[in-house]
């Protein structure tokens, strides 16, 4: 068994037993990053020296008996989390020279738990995208290949670097952020588990904002248990984020073994979309069968406003983004391109600093908030968002969790779906409604497509009921027995 086969839980046991040191584990991962990252481009900035220092500190902590479940575990940090002293780019040129003097709450919690950060993972620019092709630092290659093909595939996005790094085993786990599916869709595309917790479960302090009312941090890992371990460390109230919830964080790992006996699982009719890959529909049916076999009651439900999810999302998210990104003006930090006057400096800086997808969303967002359009777009979208939330709260009076596919297709090729942004946006069709409603949702690897690519199922739970999401996800994971590995990986 290779060192790279260890999950967090397994590695933690070996570290505790002194069968393995944090320095050995980190050194192995540092080497794997050096070997594979030039090809995969999963990291924008690798920090092997810092990682080694943290590993040494972790070993000292293990020796002192003050270790946590994450002490000495090497992870990738999505480059949207501000890390003190380490460049944070949000995959944008405009932040290329930006070294934050402060640490995000989530990354600080992970560091406090003793996790070792191998580097800053690539992503779509400002987390805007579903394929990681909008990064100013180049696309990420999915370590998975279609059967008999060498074509490069996307890892999904926006947390594509995190996903590729964990799948290719150049990180043991990773942080992601999810605004409309940015943890769940790349997890599905790379055979990983990933959870977007309830909005408010993790602090957004220090995370470069995309759409404030939707952004949530969450873990991506090899399995459901590792996600639970990570989320326990990441979650919790933070007085620096007014939208973080003042609630106790339950023990998520304890929920994994609850089973699904007696749980009511909703199957929403509206997610049976035309154009969905038949392999995915078949896998969904399998998932239903697995849960039924384990004693869950399957209930057909309706989430009638599902079809409005994408249009609402592509109004609300760009609207907030257009405002959130106004601060990148060349005045105080990041890129500045000098100009004739203030306005000229703004225009040159932002023209040079933002990529085309970011510019597109800023323009859409500016438009929908403009005088005369606000009521027709933004206000209407907010009303429909409330209806979507009501869909879920109504459904959750009848069921404990909802099962759906994570994405309508498996990973697609680099360069595919590029002709029309709307086609690209369709990737988020199954993930966006849960984001709009703020409910927790997890993608679990559950099978392979006919051409050998991983597919995920999504488990959606009630607000702040991640425990049930973990329990159902663990049940699917057990039944699926997903064990396939990507072609490109550290061995």
């Amino acid at each position, binding site marked *: 068994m290779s060192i790279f086969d260890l999950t967090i839980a397994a590695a933690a046991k070996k570290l505790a037993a002194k069968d393995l040191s944090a320095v050995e584990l980190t050194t192995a991962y540092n080497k794997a990053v050096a070997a594979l990252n030039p090809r995969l481009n999963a990291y924008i900035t690798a920090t092997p020296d810092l990682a080694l220092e943290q590993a040494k500190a972790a070993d000292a902590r293990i020796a002192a008996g003050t270790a946590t479940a994450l002490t000495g575990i090497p992870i990738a940090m999505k480059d949207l*989390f501000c890390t003190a002293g380490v460049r944070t780019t949000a995959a944008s040129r405009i932040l290329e020279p930006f070294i934050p003097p402060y640490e995000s709450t989530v990354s600080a919690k992970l560091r406090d738990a003793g996790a070792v950060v191998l580097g800053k993972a690539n992503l779509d620019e400002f987390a805007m995208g579903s394929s990681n092709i909008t990064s100013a630092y180049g696309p990420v290659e999915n370590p998975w290949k279609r059967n008999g093909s060498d074509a490069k595939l996307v890892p999904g996005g926006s947390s594509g670097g995190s996903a590729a790094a964990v799948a290719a085993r150049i990180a043991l786990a990773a942080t992601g952020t999810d605004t409309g599916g940015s943890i769940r869709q790349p997890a599905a595309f790379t055979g990983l588990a990933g959870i977007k917790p309830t909005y408010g479960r993790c602090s957004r302090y220090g995370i470069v904002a995309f759409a404030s009312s939707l952004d949530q941090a969450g873990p991506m890992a090899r399995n459901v248990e590792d996600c639970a371990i990570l989320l326990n460390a990441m979650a919790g109230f933070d007085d620096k984020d*007014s939208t973080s919830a003042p609630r106790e964080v339950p023990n998520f790992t304890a929920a994994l073994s609850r089973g699904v006996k007696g749980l009511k699982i909703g199957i929403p009719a509206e997610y049976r979309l035309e154009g969905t890959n038949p392999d995915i529909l078949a896998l969904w049916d399998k998932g239903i069968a697995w849960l039924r076999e384990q004693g869950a009651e399957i209930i057909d439900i309706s989430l009638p406003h599902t079809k409005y999810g994408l249009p609402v999302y592509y109004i609300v998210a760009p609207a907030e983004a257009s405002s959130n990104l106004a601060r990148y003006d060349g005045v105080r930090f990041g890129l500045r391109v000098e100009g004739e006057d203030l306005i000229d400096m703004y225009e040159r800086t932002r023209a040079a600093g933002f990529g085309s997808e970011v510019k597109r969303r800023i323009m859409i967002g500016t438009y929908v908030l403009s005088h005369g359009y606000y009521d027709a777009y933004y206000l209407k979208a907010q009303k429909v968002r409330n209806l979507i939330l009501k869909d879920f709260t109504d459904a959750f009076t009848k069921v404990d969790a909802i099962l759906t596919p994570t994405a309508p297709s498996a990973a697609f090729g680099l360069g595919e779906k590029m002709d029309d942004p709307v086609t690209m946006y369709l990737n988020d069709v199954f993930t966006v409604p849960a984001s709009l409603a703020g409910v927790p949702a997890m993608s679990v690897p559950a099978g392979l497509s006919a051409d050998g690519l991983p597919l995920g199922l999504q488990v959606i739970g009630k607000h702040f009921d991640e425990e049930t999401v973990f329990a159902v996800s663990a049940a699917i994971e057990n039944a699926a027995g997903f064990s396939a590995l990507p072609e490109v990986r550290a061995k």
Partner: protein
Amino acid sequence: MAYMLEGRTGAWEVVVGLEIHAQIISESKLFSGASATYGGAPNAHVSFVDAGFPGMLPVINKECVAQAVRTGLGLKAEINLFSRFDRKNYFYADLPNGYQISQFAHPIVGTGQVEIELQDGTLKQIGITRLHLEQDAGKSMHDQHASKSVIDLNRAGVALMEIVSEPDIRSPEEAGAYLRKIRQIVRYLATCDGNMEEGSMRADVNVSVRKPGEPFRTRCEIKNVNSVRFVMHAVEAEALRQIDVWESGGEVVQETRLYDPSRGETRSMRSKEDAHDYRYFPEPDLLPLILEQDWVDQLKASLPELPDEKRERFCRDYNIPFYDAGVLVAEQATADFYETVAKGRDGKLAANWITGDFFAAMNRTGKSIDNPPASAAAMGELLDLIADKTINGRIAKDVFEAMVETGKMPAAIVEEKGLRQVTDTGAIDEAVAKVLAANQDKVAEYKAGKEKLFGFFVGQVMKAMAGKGNPAIVNEAVKKQLG
């Protein structure tokens, strides 16, 4: 008489509404822990939140909310238990986030009312439309460098209250009286220092004109006027400009204007066409602001006495005229000073002394009520010396001047200078006899019917006694000896 401006086509009525920006007195800024105090080296009071760094989030400062609620209560306004913050989006170098966090659709304070008093004693109610919380921007300076502007973010994020009036104001005088009244109220409440020179209070003035009885015509907004006097001037200058436009067959266009005090005129800043589209939308980084009625009630119970109530109480408790009470409560410190002096003494006499000799001495010496020409204790003692007839009113004036000059207490001055009033009838009779003997001719005239001379004799006696004679006894003695 209603204020009207005469144009070529007849009388015009002026319609004014004010938006007052009042900086809240608080330790720290509205959404960050950085110091909100005035001054300091440039950019010394700036947190990463204020500077709009990536990933930084606003957290509401409860004390600023309390200050806004206190002010709302002071304006007799409705407190909205639900309010919400919005983003007002525009680009400027001293606006770090590219948006100002304000309250657009749901302000924390709703409609209220203040009473203003005009020169002729008329009282008038001015409606308050709303009060909302918002953050201030930083400061751009364009004269510090040959080719660059420099930015100071010390003020960025400091809490402001924007107090919006109804268009109830009808003259420059009313505009001035309203602004002074708001300043008085916030100073009493200690929610804003009202210091217009330092910019902690400034007004946007909306002005339009109309023929009496007409509906409102188009208004112009004069931005950032920073003194009561300038507000009054700006109203008049802008009204005259608009009258001229209308009477020349033109049309007033809605626009933002600036008042130039050196030229006494307003000029266009930007027209409606170039007006910003602020793209307001609910601030997603903050939850709606929900207040508990209990908390509001506690704030209400702990409010200080406000100027209107204090004025009425002064009239009632100290039996002084409404006008005098108004003068005394204009500043909280003056009211407190007066009350220290008046308590347990003749309130009317105290009011006369403070609004008379005391204010005159304050102006003459360039002192203030916080550093007064004579202390409240000294003024009280002076009144006591008058009350117990140790000195008479005339001598009291001399004693007061000595107090101002030397800072000594009045009793000490009276002793030192031997100014104690003479009530000894023997001494007085003697002085009267001397005066009458020296003025035989006048005595004869008096007896022939020129009774006006009575005052002359009294004056001469007082003079002979160096002013120390008890006026009543002197009167009596003169009357008796004249037969």
